[in-house]
């Protein structure tokens, strides 16, 4: 990405503090802290109904958290989802929500909405500025389609794409808003191992563009391959946070997923080699240090 949304390695991009979401008497998310540094891929896992998507919706302004606040690069996020996108957080949806009767290219162009300014008048008058902006948007959109490998399908209706490509298109559409943080809600749901591999590569490539990624996923191999840090959400509360080894070896996580061990026969947590949980401490420091008021555009 070429814009100012990208930041140096290590700066806090997203900082959620004490986020609580209550629906009537039900507390879906309870006092969750999470931060994402730039250049980082953070995973969010948890059993079904743990509140992962609700937490996502709190981050993107679809829900207004009952308590707590979410900061993006130091500024508190506005409670409207389109303003959140404008601020620099883009997302995909758990159940694909493309504009199914628009073409692939048009879908990505819609993603460019916040980064272009042409209103009704310029559309009606069609001045040189309008044409230039349209051309630029199209060029940028084609770049992104190239990036996810859909450039040859630009004029297909998005509904006619195969499932895996729809997922990719959704990512391209989210990237079109030039985000500093990308939230992926189960990007590999329903994919076969091969497609999952491809998605993994794609997420790494996005990270390399300087965009921080927060990803919800149930595919543990995917998560542990991908993420620098993993947070586990169970019944609305954050249980553990740390690198993959820490999380995998944590008995509470295993218990949350598989139920309390009946006897002392731990089922999981023995497959992967243990590694040192050292880099975690550094993260904690950064969260404490208030990041500079780097206001985005």
């Amino acid at each position, binding site marked *: 990405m070429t814009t100012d949304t990208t930041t140096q390695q290590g700066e806090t991009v997203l900082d959620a503090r004490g986020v609580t979401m209550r629906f009537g008497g039900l507390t879906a998310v309870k006092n969750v802290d999470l931060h994402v540094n730039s250049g980082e891929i953070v995973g969010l896992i948890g059993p079904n109904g743990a509140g992962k998507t609700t937490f996502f919706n709190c981050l993107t302004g679809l829900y207004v958290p009952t308590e707590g606040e979410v900061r993006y690069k130091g500024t508190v996020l506005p409670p*409207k989802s389109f303003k959140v996108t404008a601020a620099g957080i883009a997302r995909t949806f758990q159940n694909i929500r493309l504009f199914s009767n628009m073409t692939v290219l048009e879908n990505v162009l819609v993603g460019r909405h916040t980064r272009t300014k042409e209103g009704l008048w310029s559309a009606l008058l069609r001045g040189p500025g309008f044409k230039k902006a349209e051309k630029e948007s199209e060029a940028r959109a084609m770049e992104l389609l190239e990036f996810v490998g859909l450039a040859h399908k630009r004029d297909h209706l998005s*509904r006619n794409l195969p499932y895996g490509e729809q997922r990719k298109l959704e990512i391209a559409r*989210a990237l079109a808003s030039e985000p500093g943080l990308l939230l992926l809600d189960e990007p590999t749901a329903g994919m076969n191992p091969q497609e999952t591999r491809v998605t993994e590569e794609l997420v790494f490539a996005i990270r390399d563009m300087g965009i921080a990624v927060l990803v919800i996923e149930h595919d543990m191999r995917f998560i542990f391959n991908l993420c620098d840090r993993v947070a586990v959400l169970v019944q609305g509360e954050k249980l553990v946070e740390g690198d993959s080894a820490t999380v995998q070896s944590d008995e509470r996580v295993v218990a949350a997923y598989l139920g309390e061990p009946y006897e002392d026969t731990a089922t999981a947590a023995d497959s992967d080699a243990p590694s040192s949980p050292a880099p975690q401490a550094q993260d904690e420091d950064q969260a404490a240090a208030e990041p500079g008021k780097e206001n985005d555009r």
Partner: protein
Amino acid sequence: MTTHTTSTDMNTAADTPSPTGRLVGIPAPAARALATAGGALSLVSCFLAWTWTDAFPGDLTVYGYPGGLQWLVLVLGALTALFGLASYQVKGLRWLTPAGADPAIRLAALGAFVTAWYTVLAISLTLGGVVNLEPGGFVVAAATLIALLGALALPFERPKADPADPEDSGWDQFKHNAGQKWAVVKAAFATGPLAPAPKLPGYAEILLITAALAVGLGIFTYGIGTEYDELFIGFLVSAGFGFAALAKAGLIPRLGALTARHSNITTCAAFVAAAAFPFTQTNDRFANIGVNILIFATVALGLNIVVGLAGLLDLGYVAFLGVGAYAAALVSGSPSSPTGLHLPFWAAIIVGAIASMIFGVLIGAPTLRLRGDYLAIVTLGFGEIFRITVMNTDGTSGPDITNGSNGITSIPDLKILGFDLGAPHEIFGFTIGRFANYFFLMLLVTAVVVLVFRRSGNSRIGRAWVAIREDETAALAMGINGFRVKLVAFALGATLAGLAGAVQAHVTFVVTPEQYMFANSVPPNSAFLLAAVVMGGMGTIAGPLLGAALLYLIPTKLQFMGDYQLFAFGVALILIMRLRPEGIIADRRRKLEFHEDAEAPTVLGKTGA
């Protein structure tokens, strides 16, 4: 019509178990010959006398010169014969059927049959007996029947039979069998794949477009000028079947591709063709119909931005037309206008448009927070509130603004740059009457609306509208300020309606609250506007224009329907929604939406919206 006539043939279809189906059991070569010869014979028979007296309108008594309904049969007979010859691969005619001749022959023959038999029956019924037919009447009846039998006997690819489950109940078996038969009939009329178009030089393509538009204008002018009910019904039937036959032959899709390639030229040429319309008329009465159609169509096109692009179901849209009309009438210098202002036209039309826009924003701001059905109900309410408010601001039950139910009367004619639109003028030796003058003025407004629709639809904001229509949550998550974008659509639609209203006030001399109801038997009302958009084709430009023309012409021409008009309208709406849910002219997007499995292409060209 189609279903009725073919239903008798279903039994025969079910009896023939051949893999290549045919609806009537005649060998294929004989059938083809019969169809072609029948078509030619029905063409010839139109030059005979069909009846002995000119008591039946249209004077069908002359040998050697067709009149009235005979022309329609002649055209359809000629189409049948031409398609028949083209199916023999006759050199020079093959271009007629790029998508295969047989379905086209079937439809053309069916059309000729229906029109001819309708005429013959109408003659017998009005004049009291078959006795009143001259030999020509019997000849045409026989000829069209022969052509139809031949056409139905042409072989087609029969869908695989799927026997009913014998364990099913009788009703289920019946349903299953009926479905099978229907599938066979549908297969008989299915279009083949379109042959690749030959390369033509650019000027030839433009000439073709021009020719097609000229034919279109001719057909439209003919339809507007039909003098009696029988002829208009015959016209509708033949136009419908003729259009369907051309579409099945592949000519309409091919023309569509041409116009898509030269969309600017087509638009300009269409306006030239429309501007030529008053010159084809000697009677200002038809120009009056023309200008009313234009007003209706323009407002429908404005509504298409709101409904077709942004997906906001607005049931009170006619109120914006009313606001524009009232605002323009108040400053028109009418003696019953309490303001007493007399602004020039350019100022009046701006006042009308701005008043509508303000009204649109005022109504839109609270209502657009609702979605779907709730929005529809609230807009319906606001539409009625407008009418009732206008009714009551008459000086007794409210302030004296609009003169209540009497409305603002005797709105003076416009004078633009010294050109009096109220008086007839001589142009190129043609007399251009009052309504023709307004027709030209309205055509300019229509052009503006078409331009606005095209440009706004194909832009950042247009994409945002479509995105909101498709999935509002996702659109918001993509950074679209949903409320604001919807409000722009709403206000833009209102403004365009206001433009049309300002002209309408001057065309009709008078504005009254009754002109702006939700449902009424006179077309520009919210229900008909929405129907014009939906029937014509949401999201297209030509669709609402065509839908509005049909919805205005049919009630105007078929006065005898009287009280059954709204009923017939409802039936027509149901049929269209069942048979062609994307509307008469399909937005390519919508076509894909409704016919997932069908032959629809998966690739959409750049000129999508």
